């Protein structure tokens, strides 16, 4: 151990930090972080879009009920929701949700709540004149929304989506609370075994998170730009 130069600790544990025990065991480390983030990004985009559209079209009591639910989801810490889904659902409702799914479920719900408001704001941002013009040409409400309003609104929403996805990537580190072996958790495992290199290990994990978040920002902006030009 003494002869081990402090950065060798990363080299020696690299496969474990990058993909866990895979292919002999479950996926872990950075790869699981990517899976968790991608899964909840996709889920929250679909759910957020649907809920945002509902916010724009619903009126009265149903709209207030939806607003209340979204407010609730935005007000509770992600950590709490993960904890509830994992530990309280089995106790209260006898539903057993495995760790990976409870994290994805919690992140999807909370991100969708944030995105719903962004989608709603995007739809509202399109001038009323466009609705009227489209309806006057004989399009139905649904066609107007799908063919005229959303394509423009989604472009405006792109930065909000990218923002939310970057937050999502970082929030996957909260999965440690229920023992899901993503990057932050496997880093802690190695740190606990070697005991004296927490700075090196967590600095390395920090660099990986930074690279991942920057990658998403870059890719997201590129996609948004191409979509804008087309």
């Amino acid at each position: 151990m003494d002869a081990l130069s402090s950065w060798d600790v990363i080299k020696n544990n690299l496969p474990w930090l990058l993909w866990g025990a895979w292919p002999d065991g479950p996926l872990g480390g950075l790869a699981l972080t990517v899976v968790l983030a991608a899964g909840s990004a996709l889920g929250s985009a679909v759910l957020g879009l649907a809920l945002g559209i509902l916010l724009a079209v619903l009126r009265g009591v149903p709209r207030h009920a939806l607003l209340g639910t979204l407010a609730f989801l935005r007000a509770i810490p992600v950590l709490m929701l993960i904890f509830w889904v994992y530990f309280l659902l089995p106790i209260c409702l006898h539903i057993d949700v495995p760790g990976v799914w409870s994290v994805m479920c919690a992140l999807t719900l909370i991100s969708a709540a944030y995105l719903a408001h962004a989608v709603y704001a995007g739809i509202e941002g399109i001038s009323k004149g466009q609705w009227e013009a489209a309806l006057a040409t004989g399009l139905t409400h649904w066609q107007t929304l799908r063919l005229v309003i959303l394509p423009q609104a989604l472009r405006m929403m792109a930065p909000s989506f990218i923002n939310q996805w970057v937050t999502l990537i970082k929030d996957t580190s909260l999965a440690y609370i229920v023992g899901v072996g993503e990057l932050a958790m496997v880093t802690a495992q190695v740190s606990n075994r070697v005991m004296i290199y927490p700075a090196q290990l967590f600095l390395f994990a920090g660099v990986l998170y930074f690279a991942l978040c920057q990658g998403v920002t870059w890719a997201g902006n590129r996609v948004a730009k191409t979509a804008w030009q087309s």
Partner: protein
Amino acid sequence: MKTTLLAALLATALIPAIAMADRLDDIKKAGVLRVAAFDGNPPFGFVDEKTHKIVGLDVDYANEVAKRLGVKLEITPTNPANRIPLLAANKVDLVFANFTITDERAKVIDFSVPYFASGQQFLAKKGTLKNPQQITSLRVGADKGTTMEATLRQKYPSAQVVLFDDTPFALAALRNGNVQAITQDGSKLVAILGALPDKDKYEIPPFSISEELEGVGVPKGETRLVAFLNDTLHDLEKTGSAQTIYDRWFGPTTKAPLPRLFKIGDAHIRAE
């Protein structure tokens, strides 16, 4: 009316039946023993660098229990704070995680007889901590959700307890001077001291402030399962397997040798 009453009676009659379903039978039927163990607490439970499996003294005991039940062992990683929630939510059948038996915990879960014991001790720079009275004037680092934290607060209310998520952070704080001492099981501190590159600057003062008896955590009310565990543990001591397991992690050839002062069936740690 009569049918609703009957249904209600039937429902209330069924609830105790469900609650009384025996976990020992469930485990045998499932063919799997689900155990929570530490993933970052060497040498009790930690991820092996080569095999990427959770190994350690606790896991060895869990393995022996699974072997005698004739079932497969499935390990779920845990941190100190999740041990009781994992049992309560039926995510695991047993907890083998350096689990100190306390009256407080015994209100919500059951314990087997202790299979390991150690005292709560301190690690500090040489000369800073000579006797227990000095603890009151120090900043002491402890791991969150452990009995160390509770004992320290109760016995030395004026000591400044600084909580850490993990032992490496507490250790880093000690080495940087953020805290003057850290507290842990003596058995674990010996291993930590052994891992330090500048170990000659540190010491484990020769006193302990509590005796920690560690048992298997069992869901509340599973008396048959507890009885099976106790029989198994006593038998492991009798056949010498307990000694073999101990020597694997604390024996003379290990990195942190420690004399064995507690055997399964003892009430307390023996005087050296």
